[in-house]
């Protein structure tokens, strides 16, 4: 048995995972080699050793000594009445692998990728990948986009950035002396874990060109486990040396000692045309363009049948035809002059016209416009009014159009710079600001024209047929991460709040849950259901259960287990490939082709690439090439038949996840592959490269036929799900048998799992957090899930397996209250440790004084420390010499008491209502008595069948000495589990014959009895209980303060007041509302009705009518405030007996 204590069960699993999962992203490199044994490292530095042992061996210890006479511990050893005790006690739980195998068998033929594969990308890989991309690639692009600085004063002078680097985290110890830091040091010393940003620059001095390298220009906080983090590529042993937990996912920053996460932000796709109806039902299109230089939003709207372009740089909407006028001219390609007669009222049109580089006049141009938009009857009809409008405005040439637009440009003249004419300005605007993402070279607006035309066409086609795009569709969404410019940028006038949050370290799960959280830009206050409701395209990408209740419901979401978020990719090679595959450049077409029924438009990241005739072939070839590894696996291609488009996406922020490819109705992954994977000959990367598995994003997923299970494959099937349970996220993954629960219960559990206390990491004892809750004896759950294994919840558990009897007892269990066994509490059930910290900074003041740590103050007479300082050592604190920041960690051990909150993993929370001595507890034939008694009324309305099954599986597992699985859409079957119960002489239904501990007679009912995993939640009475008789009052109103932290009073609220009024208890009312609150003696003049002072009315200059009465101070305050506003409240006094 002792051996078991030595080798934490986790060790082996980890090794394996490292071997399997070496992603190609490794160069950005987040997961390095992991060494097998956490336990190998040196113990001096590290409490964690012990700590993790404890956590993993809580049960072990129980077994080691029969002296641990607990009832709740007996669960693990004494279930089996037929086997002699000693033996059953000592049989170790089966190896994890073994258990895993069993489930594999259960699920039959579906190939199951073992855990490590699923986690190839890691749980927080999205954050790390994104940040890596940012500091290694994107930052250089941003620099390139803004590389040159010139001066108006000296045209010869310039400064150019040549290169930019982000270094590795360090601290400046003293002037110019830096030293690498570890993240944990930053946490402890309240520092920022950041690295210097250095640049190479080139500038002129006189006529000289000077190059300077490695100039620091600032510091960048470094994400933990990113490519520049010191933790990258370290073994668990090295982690331990750095006081880090190898299970900690990383992906957050440390800023001034506080761990901060940048939440994933959900946004509408950039550079995509979104056609949608406004509130009045009119259809419009909008595009949010974004490039490195600019961001802008362009709207295409319809007013009275005419198309207008709306942009915030234009003071009013511009008729679309005018825009075309400008764009449509093929300056470089035709010499033909076109005469455009279009109406000016609408700015869009004018804009278009203005763009004409040639003297755009006449029929040809109008024709061209119409050709581009579409020559179908109804399309032309729809567009005709716009052309007309252009004509009405007397705009026929590009010049006129530009002039028109120029007048509408919102003036935001920048200082300096050569003066531009209005026309130039308009041209500039059209070229660079409106639809920025469509590149305009040398004012050749061809591409932009076509793009605008496509927008118009979309809107026309969408009219009537109501084929508007769905804003909530996840193919139209992009998720922004740390690396994607999430923070405030002055350049884009963006300032978002609440993007970073402090990482919640309440439990391991809460930290993990935070890393997968997605917040939506949508306003929380608006009462709309659309963005909040579950979208079918969320399937498999976002967890359907994990969302908060209340105002953020549905707006805050969580990633599913296997979801990956893409980063930007080079599009150059894709463009080349596309043209090789037969995509024709739009600029070479006359425009009419766009609306041919057999021609498909090809878009790349929202830009029109060209057209293709045989789209099917294009898509197929593209996919083949991707599977062969010629194209990055995260490039997606999908067809939209109704819009006749092929979309290729290589942009960042798309949601995607892996699927098994199905060929000829057979999954590409075979058992042989799986064996090789298990043996480590292959890894997941190989699978990807060999075309066995591929990543699909939401759009492409919609273009595929995906089978859920192998037996559902038919001739149309293109892909196979890897594992259905991965559609749940991290938090929902903890729930056993979630598919048997009513869905809100799973949602509740997702919220509650984050409040459960347990273990937070192997380095928990080295941390000095403001608040930390730990469980004294955490256990891994008897009924686990695949997700639990994947996320290592077993190594950092938060809860205990409690023996539960579902019965009523004593009446102290109504309303979900629980009855606890006192002996269980004595033995350590639910015992927790609360850590708080106290901080103190030693300061130096300007007057040369400074703070200093002193020993205890001595009493003058006795030469002994005064009583307040008795506890201090002679030096006050250990080695305070250079200390600048002093942190103290305070600890409290708590055993559960009445009012403490517990919860199972099924959203069934309850407070402890009564603690009962063990001898009063009911016991079954084998002498087991429950740790917890739960009232059966908790079940019918909640419908948490999963909990019932968890109990059965837990009981069977405890009898057999093994763990059962409650994995979603799988897990151990009830039938098998119940057979196990029978085998051990227990009832098939899990209901036992139970004797009352009080009377000694049997109970009339059979009792549902067995282990359920219970979490202790952070809400404890000790932190909440509050009472006050007298105490502090608020300065202004003289009423008692509010809240426990201010030792406040207990409010007798409006409703309570109503009750007293209704009851007629006037004296009580008076007492509560005035006498016990803010009674105040005032002198009132009966003549003028104003407040006097000291028996003297200052208004009447008399004291003869002044009487003294008691009113609430707040009332007096009101009178005076009213007076200050020139309102005189007068009191009318009368003798009460008159």
């Amino acid at each position, binding site marked *: 048995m002792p051996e078991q204590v030595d080798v934490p069960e986790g060790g082996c699993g980890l090794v394996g995972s490292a071997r399997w999962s070496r992603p190609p992203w490794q160069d950005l490199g987040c997961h390095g080699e992991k060494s097998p044994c956490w336990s190998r490292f040196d113990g*001096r530095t590290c409490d964690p050793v012990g700590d993790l042992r404890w956590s993993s061996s809580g049960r072990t210890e129980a077994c080691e*000594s*029969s002296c641990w006479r607990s009832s709740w511990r007996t669960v693990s050893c004494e279930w089996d009445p037929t086997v002699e*005790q000693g033996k059953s006690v000592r049989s170790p739980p089966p190896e994890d692998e073994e258990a895993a195998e069993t489930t594999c068998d259960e699920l039959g033929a579906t190939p199951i990728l073992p855990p490590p594969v699923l986690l190839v990308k890691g749980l927080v890989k999205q954050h790390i990948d994104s940040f890596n991309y940012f500091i290694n690639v994107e930052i250089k692009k941003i620099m390139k986009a803004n590389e040159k600085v010139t001066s108006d004063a000296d045209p010869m002078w310039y400064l150019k950035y040549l290169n930019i680097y982000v270094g590795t985290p360090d601290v400046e110890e003293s002037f110019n002396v830096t030293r690498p830091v570890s993240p944990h040091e930053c946490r402890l010393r309240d520092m920022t874990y950041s690295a210097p940003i250095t640049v190479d620059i080139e500038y002129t001095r006189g006529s000289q060109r000077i190059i300077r390298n490695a100039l620091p220009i600032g510091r960048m906080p470094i994400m933990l486990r990113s490519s520049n983090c010191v933790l990258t590529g370290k073994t668990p042993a090295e982690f331990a040396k750095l006081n880090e937990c190898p299970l900690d996912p990383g992906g957050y920053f440390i800023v001034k000692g506080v761990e901060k996460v940048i939440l994933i932000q959900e946004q509408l796709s950039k550079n995509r045309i979104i056609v949608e109806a406004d509130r009045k039902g009119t259809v419009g299109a909008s595009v949010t363009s974004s490039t490195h230089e600019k961001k802008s939003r362009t709207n295409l709207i319809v007013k009275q049948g005419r198309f207008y372009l709306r942009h915030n740089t234009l003071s009013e909407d511009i008729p679309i035809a005018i825009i075309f006028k400008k764009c449509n001219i093929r300056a470089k390609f035709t010499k033909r002059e076109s005469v455009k007669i279009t109406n000016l009222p609408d700015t869009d049109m004018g804009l278009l016209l203005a763009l004409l580089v040639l003297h755009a006049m006449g029929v040809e141009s109008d024709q061209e416009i119409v050709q581009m938009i579409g020559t179908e009857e109804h399309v032309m009809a729809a567009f005709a009014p716009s052309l007309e409008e252009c004509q009405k405005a007397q705009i026929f040439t590009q010049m006129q159009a530009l002039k028109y637009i120029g007048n509408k440009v919102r003036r935001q003249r920048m200082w300096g710079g050569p003066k531009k004419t209005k026309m130039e300005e308009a041209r500039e605007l059209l070229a660079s600001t409106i639809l920025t993402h469509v590149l305009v070279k040398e004012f050749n607006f061809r591409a932009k024209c076509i793009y605008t035309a496509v927008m118009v066409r979309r809107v026309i086609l969408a009219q009537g047929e109501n084929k508007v795009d769905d804003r909530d569709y996840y193919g139209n969404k992009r998720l922004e991460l740390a690396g994607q410019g999430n923070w405030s940028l002055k350049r884009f006038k963006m300032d978002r709040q609440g993007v970073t949050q402090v990482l919640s370290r309440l439990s391991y799960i809460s930290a993990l849950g935070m890393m997968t959280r997605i917040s939506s830009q949508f306003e929380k206050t608006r009462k709309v259901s659309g963005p909040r409701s579950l979208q079918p395209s969320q399937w498999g990408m976002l967890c359907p259960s994990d969302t908060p209740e209340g105002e953020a419901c549905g707006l805050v979401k969580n990633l599913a287990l296997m979801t990956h978020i893409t980063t930007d990719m080079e599009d150059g090679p894709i463009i080349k490939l596309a043209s090789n595959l037969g995509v024709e450049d739009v600029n070479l077409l006359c425009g009419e082709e766009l609306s041919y029924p057999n021609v498909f438009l090809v878009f790349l990241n929202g830009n029109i690439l060209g057209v293709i005739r045989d789209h099917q072939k294009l898509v197929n070839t593209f996919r083949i090439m991707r599977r062969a590894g010629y194209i990055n696996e995260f490039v997606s291609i999908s067809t939209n038949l109704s819009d006749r488009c092929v979309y290729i996406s290589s942009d960042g922020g798309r949601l995607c996840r892996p699927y098994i490819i199905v060929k000829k109705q057979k999954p590409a992954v075979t058992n042989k592959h799986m064996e090789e994977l298990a043996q480590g000959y292959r890894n997941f990367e190989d699978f990807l490269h060999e075309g066995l598995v591929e990543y699909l994003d939401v759009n492409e997923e919609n273009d595929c036929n995906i089978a859920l299970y192998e037996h559902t494959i038919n001739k149309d099937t293109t892909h196979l799900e890897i594992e259905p349970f991965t559609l749940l996220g991290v938090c929902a993954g903890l729930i056993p048998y979630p598919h048997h629960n009513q869905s809100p219960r799973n949602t509740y559990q997702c919220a509650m799992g984050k409040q459960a206390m347990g273990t937070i990491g192997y380095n928990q004892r080295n941390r000095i957090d403001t608040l930390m809750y730990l469980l004294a004896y955490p256990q891994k759950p008897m009924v686990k899930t695949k997700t639990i294994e994947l996320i290592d919840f077993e190594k950092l558990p938060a809860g205990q397996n409690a023996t539960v009897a579902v019965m009523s007892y004593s009446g102290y269990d109504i309303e979900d209250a629980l009855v606890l066994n006192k*002996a269980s509490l*004595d033995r350590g059930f639910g015992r927790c440790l609360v850590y708080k910290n106290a901080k103190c900074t030693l300061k130096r003041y300007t007057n040369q004084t400074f703070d200093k740590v002193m020993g205890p103050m001595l009493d003058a007479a006795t030469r002994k420390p005064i009583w307040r300082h008795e506890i201090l050592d002679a030096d006050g604190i250990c080695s305070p010499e250079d200390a600048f920041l002093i942190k103290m960690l305070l600890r409290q051990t708590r055993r559960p008491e009445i009012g403490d909150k517990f919860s199972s993993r099924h959203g069934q929370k309850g407070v402890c209502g009564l603690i009962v001595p063990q001898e009063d507890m009911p016991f079954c034939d084998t002498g087991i008595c429950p740790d917890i008694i739960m009232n059966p009324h908790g079940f019918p309305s909640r419908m948490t069948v999963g909990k019932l099954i968890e109990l059965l599986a837990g009981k069977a597992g405890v009898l057999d000495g093994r763990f059962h699985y409650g994995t979603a859409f799988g897990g151990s079957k009830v039938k098998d589990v119940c057979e196990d119960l029978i085998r051990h002489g*227990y009832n098939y239904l899990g209901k036992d014959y139970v004797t009352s*501990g009080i009377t000694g007679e*049997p109970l009339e009912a059979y009792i549902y009895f067995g282990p359920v995993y219970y979490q202790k939640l952070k809400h404890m009475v000790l932190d909440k209980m509050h009472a006050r008789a007298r105490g502090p009052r608020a300065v202004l109103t003289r009423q008692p303060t509010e809240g426990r932290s201010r030792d406040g009073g207990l409010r007798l609220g409006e409703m309570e007041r109503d009750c007293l009024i209704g009851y007629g208890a006037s004296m009580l009312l008076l007492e509560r509302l005035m006498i016990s609150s803010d009674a105040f003696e005032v002198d009132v003049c009966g003549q003028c009705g104003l407040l006097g002072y000291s028996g003297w009315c200052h208004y009447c200059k008399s004291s003869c009518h002044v009487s003294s009465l008691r009113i609430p101070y707040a009332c007096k305050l009101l009178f005076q405030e009213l007076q200050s506003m020139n309102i005189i409240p007068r009191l009318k006094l009368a003798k009460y007996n008159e």
Partner: protein
Amino acid sequence: MAAKRRTDEMRDRVVLGEFGVRNVHTTDFPGNYPGYEDAWDQRRFEEEFRVDVIREEEGTLEFDMVGIDAAIANAFRRILLAEVPTMAVEKVFVYNNTSIVQDEILAHRLGLIPIRADPRLFEYRNQGDEEGTEIDTLQFQLKIKCSRNPQAAKESSDPNELYFNHKVYSKHMTWVPLGNQTDLFPDADFRPVHDDILIALLRPGQEIDVLMHCVKGIGKDHAKFSPVATASYRLLPDITLLQPVEDEAAELLQKCFSPGVIEIQNIKGKKVARVANARLDTFSREVFRHEGLKNLVRLARVRNHYIFSVESTGILPPDVLVSEAIKILMGKCQRFLNELDSVPME
């Protein structure tokens, strides 16, 4: 006749039905049943009451207690759990603890270690008494420091080889006699019952140095004083076949019970089921799942036949515990009688 049988069943048997237990309560109060003499009678009680020890192994005792009321039997069980005193660590004086186990947790763990010391030799400590004396306190010391093993192989990763004393076991606790305890208990060997209870893990440089005071206490106060791992009873099973069960049904029936409960005999070429040893059954009530069998069997338990099972923690042998429990109950009765006597009759 049938009526009498029914009444007898109601009086003597707890019947396990498919959906619940019937005749749960004791009903044989005087006057409750016509024709039965239920008034308590010393002679009859002595005739009927018996205690048979079934199994006595190290630390566990199984015995039958027949002919007694549930209240009394339960009282024994309750007293065993909560009122038979033992010695356990109550105060821990931490001189040094650099291990990762927090002081409170360490103290809690030490408290739960059963100490082999006969509680009958000690007195209860008076309330508010901080200093222990030799009559009410046993002192133990745990002083251990972990160090590196210089001989360990360089590449070894086995902590057992790398370090000395990295596991703190209960065997490391040593008795430190207080006052004249050496003379009081010349051949006493006070120590934890088990040597291999793991208390903490250490790494080189870490050290635990604590002094513990064991005092006498009862399980009601804290579970650590409870002398039993568990003490409970069950009623003797009584399984009756209402009709003859033969052949396949017999085999099926056999499978519905714990092994050894139903025996199959070969009578005239027919396999006939017979209840061999009902005592072995654990009442999985499997019969009720078989439509064809459920009406052929009556599952019941003998109301006044208690099969006790006492598992000692090892501090005292279970038979001693039981007799202690009886003594405590007798003491309580005596006190009650004394109280009654001391109240002046009106």
